[in-house]
């Protein structure tokens, strides 16, 4: 819409001005050939000089700048890529070292554990042996005591029974007959109490 108005107004303004100013200033100054040669001359001169300077000095410099920047950026990217690769390999190495040291630590730990277990085992054995020896010794003592105990009890029984009998009867009794009876009794009942 705006475009249409714009072009229409241009068109009408042309019609208008051609009529209004044709007589006054000889129409469009562009169609006045008075300075055509001058314009052509100056156009060729200025444009030619500008073209010469641009094509010989300025444009090669700009293209050079662009190229050098491009190559520099490419180089930098390459270097960055290389560094990235380097860091990746380093990371890999680091991981490997970490893994290795972990395994080492594990094996050391295992060794230490085994050793400790072995130590404990041997010490336990020694202790067990000592304990066993003590137990055996104690058992021996108990056995001895057990063997001796009935005799002592018998003796006490004989003494007490002879004393009791003396007090009951009032006369002394042959201790051998009492001891025979006690021994006989203890033999019969001893199985019950001692289990042997």
């Amino acid at each position, binding site marked *: 819409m705006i475009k249409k108005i714009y072009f229409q107004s241009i068109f009408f303004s042309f019609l208008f001005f051609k009529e209004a100013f044709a007589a006054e200033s000889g129409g469009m100054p562009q169609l006045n050939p008075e300075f055509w040669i*001058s314009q052509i001359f100056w156009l060729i001169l200025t444009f030619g000089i500008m073209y010469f300077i641009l094509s010989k*000095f300025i444009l090669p410099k700009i293209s050079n700048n662009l190229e050098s920047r491009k190559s520099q950026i490419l180089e930098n990217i390459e270097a960055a890529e290389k560094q990235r690769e380097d860091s990746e390999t380093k990371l890999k190495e680091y991981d490997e070292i970490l893994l290795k040291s972990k395994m080492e630590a594990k094996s050391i730990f295992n060794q230490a554990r085994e050793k400790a277990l072995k130590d404990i085992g041997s010490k336990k054995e020694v202790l067990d042996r000592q304990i066993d020896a003590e137990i055996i010794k104690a058992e021996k003592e108990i056995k001895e005591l057990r063997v001796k105990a009935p005799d002592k009890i018998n003796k006490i029984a004989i003494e007490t029974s002879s004393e009791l009998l003396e007090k009951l009867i009032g006369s002394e009794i042959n201790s051998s007959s009492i001891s025979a009876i006690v021994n006989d009794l203890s033999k019969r009942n001893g199985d019950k109490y001692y289990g042997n």
Partner: protein
Amino acid sequence: MAANPMSQFDVYRIGPEIKVGAFDISFTNASLFMIISTVSILLVFNLGSKRNSVLPNKMQLLAELSYTFVAKMISDTAGSKAKPYFAFIFSLFMFVLFCNMFGMIPYTFTVTSHIIVTFILASFIFIGVTIIGFIKHGFGYLKLFVPSGVPAVLLPLIVVIEIISYLSRPISLSVRLFANMMAGHTMMKVFGGFVISLGLVGGWLPLSFSVALTGLEILVAFLQAYVFAILTCIYLNDALNLHH
């Protein structure tokens, strides 16, 4: 007469009259703005290419963006064979762009609003492209006028149309730029005149229109330079890579 919208296109002599033989090559306001444009281009791109830092400053960025913009335009439309003509198309684009843009400053002269200037540029392109075409393809370049896949009955007509369209290239190229520039600047002047004549009461409408037109004209200034350059690339493409 300052109120005349066409008076901004007047060419007048600055300094003495210079004559070489029968030709008047006096220094005019047109010459002045050609020099201003070319010197600005050289200054901008010289500053933009002076230092080569990896992180470009503003001038360098401007120069390099322009360079890559034109390089991409050429390689997109004319292919890699057009590389030797890069400097010419770059100069052409920058010259037209700077002349158009300088014309947008009030009280300046628009070099490209003169048919003779655009016509000389366009005919130079036309002749150059034609010569390149004949050098590259010999008389095979004439195949350009014989499109493939056209029925034999239509061929004479098509060939005539093709030749006419080829020969009208410099005219269309030059008139497009010249007419756009002249029309835009005339419009701006007309609306500027309306602002004065309608005064404080009614002048605001043409003033706002004038502001909008300025934006549009800056767009047109860039666009016409771009169109001029890209059409040159297309013509060059016809000459370099003959499709038929």
